[in-house]
């Protein structure tokens, strides 16, 4: 299945299961896509291999950034007319709370979709969406 086919399956049939074939890192981490209240949500399953600090059982900060970046990319490829995988230009991640080893969810919002560059904001949370553990703003190259 080509990358374009995988994107079209996700966009038109809401079949997100094959995104991991296009983005192997998602499968390696246990990152999946679900729909919740009509929006696309990334879900990072709880796993010991996500721990950054072994004594505090806290999620690795780099991994939290990776989940947010992936949420932004997935949100972008669901936009109509996007045919290539967006490439990150820069990202800023703010860490608000320490992440525990529990399921972590992330959503992204495309703030501006230009022909060449998109601006995206994303946030992730654990038990309570009103208490995000980290947020991201980023620019992505769309060509």
């Amino acid at each position, binding site marked *: 299945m080509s*990358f374009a086919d995988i994107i079209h399956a996700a966009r038109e049939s809401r079949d997100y299961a094959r995104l991991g*074939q*296009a*983005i*192997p*890192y998602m*499968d*390696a*981490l246990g990152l999946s896509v679900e729909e919740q209240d009509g929006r696309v949500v990334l879900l990072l399953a709880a796993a*010991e*291999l*996500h*721990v*950054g*600090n*072994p*004594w*505090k059982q806290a*999620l*690795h*900060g*780099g*991994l939290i*950034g*990776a*989940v947010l*970046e*992936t949420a932004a*990319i997935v949100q972008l490829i669901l936009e109509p007319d996007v045919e290539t*995988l967006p*490439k*990150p*230009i*820069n*990202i*800023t*991640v*703010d*860490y608000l709370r*320490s992440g525990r080893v529990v399921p972590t969810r992330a959503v992204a919002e495309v703030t501006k979709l230009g022909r060449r560059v998109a601006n995206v904001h994303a946030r992730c949370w654990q038990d309570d969406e009103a208490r995000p553990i980290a947020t991201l703003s980023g620019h992505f190259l769309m060509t």
Partner: protein
Amino acid sequence: MNDSIFLDQLRVFLARPGNRSPHNNFLGLEIVHLEHARAVLRVPYDARLAGNATTGVLHGGVITTAIDSACGVSVITALGKRMGIATLDLRIDYLKPAQPGQAVTAAAHCYKVTRNICFVRAIAYHADRDDPIANCAASFMITSLEPAGPALDEAAP
């Protein structure tokens, strides 16, 4: 504490399996160099960690994780003492795609320490520091003067 004694103790401490970060282990991230306020870490190439199956280019998240880890270790070597620290924010510019098949090195420099906050610059590159893949500015908060886990000079179990 004398800086070189601290660095030697830290090397031994971080090499013990129980003190290693499970996620860094998962990525195969290794420390290659430590000195005062500086740390160099390396992550091997792994096709399973690609962000694009067609090109095989590593996901930006792998670079982010390598950089975050290197920044954190550079903060500890700058403090000269293990303390509880947490990433406050991280900005990364992706300057060019990583080359498939090549390890990525992240080099961090904690250039300023204050009572509460530490400031760090970092780059990621393959072989040539002057041709970086990514550039980073980060800040860390000192969350506790007494970190979780065993003392640095505690004998290995």
